[in-house]
């Protein structure tokens, strides 16, 4: 076999591998959309913002296909991008314009919790969602938000305190 034929085989092998990798990532992104949307919705509590966050995450993950080698990495990476994007869209659509709630318990419980959560800063909402909705450990939250585990514990406590204060109408 000549050198040229070997080179052609090597290049075509690389293209085939890249194509397979793209197919794997595309299938993964297709299957994981419900999970992504629900996590984004649990943070933003608005379907339009959640959809925006997921769409941006899908594009970023697709662009990063070549950097990722395992599906495990891909899920962690997608979660990281998604949560950061959800926080960004929340900050952009500042929900501080919501009406003041004097007694949140006058509404049904679900609505009351929602209204109280909307008074919290986006970072607090994200950390609560990662803990209560996703059920992640401190270590996993730390990897997702890019902060040390100790900081996760203190931020989670702060978020809980803020929620409790708002809930009790302090």
């Amino acid at each position, binding site marked *: 076999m000549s050198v040229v034929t070997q080179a052609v085989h090597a290049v075509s092998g690389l293209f085939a591998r890249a194509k397979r990798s*793209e197919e794997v990532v*595309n299938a993964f*992104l297709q299957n994981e*959309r*419900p999970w992504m*949307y*629900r*996590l984004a*919705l*649990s943070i933003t509590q608005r*379907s339009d913002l959640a*959809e925006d966050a*997921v*769409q941006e995450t*899908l*594009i970023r993950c*697709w*662009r990063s296909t070549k950097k990722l080698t395992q599906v495990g990495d891909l899920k962690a990476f997608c979660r990281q991008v998604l949560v950061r994007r959800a926080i960004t869209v929340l900050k952009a659509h500042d929900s501080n314009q919501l009406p003041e709630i004097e007694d949140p318990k006058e509404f049904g*419980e*679900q609505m009351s*919790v*929602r209204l109280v*959560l909307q008074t919290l800063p986006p970072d607090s909402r994200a950390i*609560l*969602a990662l803990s*209560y*909705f996703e059920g992640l450990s401190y270590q996993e939250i730390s990897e997702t938000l890019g902060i040390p585990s100790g900081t996760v514990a203190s931020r989670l406590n702060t978020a*809980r305190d803020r*929620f*409790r204060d708002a*809930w009790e109408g302090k």
Partner: protein
Amino acid sequence: MKDQLENFYLQFHEAEVPPSLVQLDVPTLEKRRVGREISVWTVAFVLAWILTSAPTWTPASVQPSFAWSSVLGRQLEPVASLDAEEGK
């Protein structure tokens, strides 16, 4: 309080995903996005070039160097002779 938060987040596990998101074709969307980014950068580059170089332009520098006479097949009248006809 813990129970309230846990109960609240339970509802999102069953949230229905919008069909527009399910049907989204990511590779196509990404290609469109790249096209749009290239267009924006091109326009920005041209604008920046015009804004930075326009103050240095002179009538001579913006005159085309292309020889139109070779296309038209005849010698164009020099501008100076036109001025002479008008008695300037």
